[in-house]
């Protein structure tokens, strides 16, 4: 902790120094022919304290930041005399939203892909993941972002105005889905063909069915699908944690789903027109109920039952939110006929019910998140695959297999947990890089986030905004490293002290 703080301070001195000496802050005024040139120069000199040497300016900045201890931060003024505090609060919100979402998605998808690729080593799926990882590594961020803006925003907006899926498109979607599933599930050729064909037919059928219903403009899940998703999650979690032997865990998950259904009827009015505090309250209630259910059903496996119940409850809540969002897609389209705008992080004066408001900033989040996720996904999946393959070769895994444990237990209990240890460090290290990527992404998508703060500050050779950017990214990086250390201790009992 002490070392982290020291590095934060040293980093701030270094960044301040090189920013101050990266150019001449008065350059544009020196070349201007304005009559009030002198006054402008004087005002800027006063705003930026240019008459002081850089270390005095750094000290002034540092004492302002030190007031943060009493929750009274003073980040000073930028070269135009505007307060940086307000600018930072606005910017940090949108950027951290973006980066956090991208990190979480990249962790979940990347690690899952890596594990599957390692389990099915040298399969078609493995080669596909390898190739995609190389491709994603080599993609220029800004180039992909501009491409997405063209194809996923403008063309999507044109399409959603009168959505219809042609027969060829539906067939292609079906075939791709079938191929993916067949290569994932493996088995001999006959089984692969069977799974592939079934999956392709189901996907093709679903797409054409949705098309007939006009689902693209009026989508919904309905309570039935929500329950189905939650039950599937509960069964999957039970299978991963204890297998088919312990029925109590499964009953706990199913009870949670049943109580969830009751909950949706009780809180129906809150769910259809909530506010953020109400949503949090309902989430807390569902987690509390899940813990209680797990505790009551658990028997000897209370902690596992509780975790499975919580997982099921969270899936149920997520599916319910998704359902509400989908139901409000139509009303949202009525208010905003071209849903994805290529610039900005939300409409300026959007008015509508709660869920359409969520859509308003949600759709703006989709494209930048895809860009950022894809970039970090590549390294996470490669690392997980390598780490997983290495653990699978270890002697204790062979011992576990030879004493007759099922493949499920070997993979989840013996291999996965150990393979995840190095991944936590990578995720923490990657966070700073991800914020760097966010700078570029925000520029392309025209977000007024931290990237813009940094970029404009640097262009004006103004250390204030640059240091504000650093303050947030540096602190976030240090926090991420601490989180990684905690996760480390959680995964690897040997380093608990």
């Amino acid at each position, binding site marked *: 902790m002490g070392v982290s703080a020291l590095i934060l301070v040293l980093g701030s001195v270094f960044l301040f120094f090189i920013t101050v000496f990266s150019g001449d802050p008065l350059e544009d005024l020196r070349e201007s022919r304005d009559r009030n040139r002198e006054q402008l120069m004087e005002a800027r000199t006063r705003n930026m304290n240019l008459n002081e040497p850089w270390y005095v300016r750094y000290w002034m900045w540092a004492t302002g930041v030190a007031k943060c201890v009493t929750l009274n931060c003073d980040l000073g003024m930028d070269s135009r005399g505007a307060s940086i505090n307000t600018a930072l609060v606005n910017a940090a919100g949108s950027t951290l939203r973006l980066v956090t979402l991208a990190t979480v998605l990249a962790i979940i998808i990347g690690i899952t892909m890596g594990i599957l690729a390692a389990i099915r080593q040298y399969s078609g799926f493995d080669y596909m993941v390898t190739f995609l990882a190389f491709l994603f590594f*080599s993609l*220029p961020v800004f*180039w992909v972002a501009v491409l997405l803006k063209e194809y996923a925003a403008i063309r999507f907006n044109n399409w959603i105005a009168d959505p219809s899926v042609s027969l060829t498109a539906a067939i292609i979607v079906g075939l791709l889905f079938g191929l993916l599933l067949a290569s994932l599930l493996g088995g001999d050729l006959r089984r692969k063909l069977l799974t592939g064909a079934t999956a392709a037919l189901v996907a093709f059928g679903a797409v054409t069915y949705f098309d007939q219903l006009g689902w693209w403009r009026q989508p919904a899940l309905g309570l039935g699908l929500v329950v189905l998703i939650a039950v599937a999650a509960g069964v999957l979690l039970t299978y991963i944690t204890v297998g088919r032997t312990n029925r109590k865990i499964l009953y706990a998950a199913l009870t949670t789903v049943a109580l969830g259904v009751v909950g949706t009827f009780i809180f129906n009015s809150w769910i259809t027109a909530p506010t953020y505090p109400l949503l949090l309250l309902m989430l807390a209630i569902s987690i509390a109920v899940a813990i209680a259910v797990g505790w009551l059903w658990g028997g000897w496996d209370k902690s596992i039952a509780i975790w499975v119940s919580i997982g099921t409850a969270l899936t149920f809540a997520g599916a319910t939110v998704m359902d509400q969002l989908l139901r409000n897609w139509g009303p949202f389209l009525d208010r905003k006929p071209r849903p994805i705008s290529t610039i900005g992080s939300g409409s300026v004066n959007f008015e509508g019910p709660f869920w359409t408001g969520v859509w308003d900033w949600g759709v703006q989040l989709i494209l930048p998140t895809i860009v950022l996720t894809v970039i970090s996904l590549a390294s996470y999946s490669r690392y997980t695959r*390598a780490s997983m393959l290495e653990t699978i070769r270890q002697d204790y895994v*062979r011992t576990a297999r030879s004493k007759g444990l099922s493949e499920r237990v070997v993979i989840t209990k013996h291999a996965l947990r150990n393979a995840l240890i190095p991944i936590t460090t990578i995720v923490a290290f990657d966070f700073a890089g991800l914020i760097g990527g966010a*700078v570029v992404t925000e520029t392309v998508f025209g977000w007024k986030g931290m990237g813009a703060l940094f970029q404009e500050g640097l262009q004006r050779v103004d250390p204030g905004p640059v240091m504000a950017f650093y303050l947030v990214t540096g602190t976030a990086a240090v926090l991420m490293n601490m989180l990684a250390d905690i996760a480390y201790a959680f995964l690897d009992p040997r380093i608990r002290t």
Partner: protein
Amino acid sequence: MSDDNDKPDIPGSGREHLAPIPEQVDPGSPQHVDLQRPDVLSVEKEIDLTQKSYSQGELIRRRFFRHRGAMISLAFLVFITLMAVTSIGWGPIPGWWPKNYWDASFVQDGGRPTLTFFPPSWGEQPFGQEDAGKDYFALVMRGTQRSLTIAFTVGILTTIIGTLIGAIAGYFRGWTEAILMRVTDLFIVIPLLVLAAVLGQRSGGGIWPLAIMLSLVSWTGLARLVRGEVLSLREREFVTAAEAIGTSPWRIILKHILPNTMGTIIVSATLTIAAVILLESALSFLGFGVQPPDTSLGLLISTYQNSFTVRPWLFWWPGLIILGIALSVNFLGDGLRDAFDPRQSRSSD
């Protein structure tokens, strides 16, 4: 965030150890069945050890030349480099392409590209023309030249700086090591792109100052890697023997230790080049890299990103070339790693 060698390298630093890990014959494992399948991607199946024995260098070379992905990448890279250098010439030497990248001319047919693949023909303006009628092929080739120059300069400088500092820190320990580790920690709190942007602004837009500035920020990863290797090598017997007969420390580092880390260094240098191509183009795109009188692939994309709907070719060509270079250099690095470290390759020897 301490000097802990167990920690893997930072993603994006180019040393992610992407090569697949060899599969061991494990009778109990379900993957056993897959082993029987002939592996088309094997890199050294045909080595017959009964006939001729090979030196270490020959083995590495053979493994590398049999890595199909690496060979295709190498061919592509050589092709792009030759194309960029010979088409518009280098400095005062003229190239074979009749047009230059600075003369504006009359825009024909909306500046549409005339390159066709079937039947293959160049036409008058293979990549089309930009808004002022400049020949876009010449412009893209110029950008490729500049981007490649920066990437290779940074690759070479970074390798020299990183190797030297890593070797000194690993061999002498002491304050060099402490400083190295603290500087590496710095990159955890300051994103590389941010640091490069600030220094790039300072460099004023020329490609040589920019290349030097980028080298100054991208050596840390390699230095850590070399330090780790040197730390283990300096405890080996041959180093002790050399010390016992009074060899000077510099001679030990240069003659005994560094040759043993060559594999790591070469692989890392390759992957640095791929990372630098992307970093430079991102910086130029943001406006902190190469500045307008000069040009680079990133700058071309940045300049013409708004003409995407009208003239998409202005956007596609430089982007595809960046992607192609980065992808082939990454594959090349992977092939080199397989060649230097056969433990990581797919073949079962």
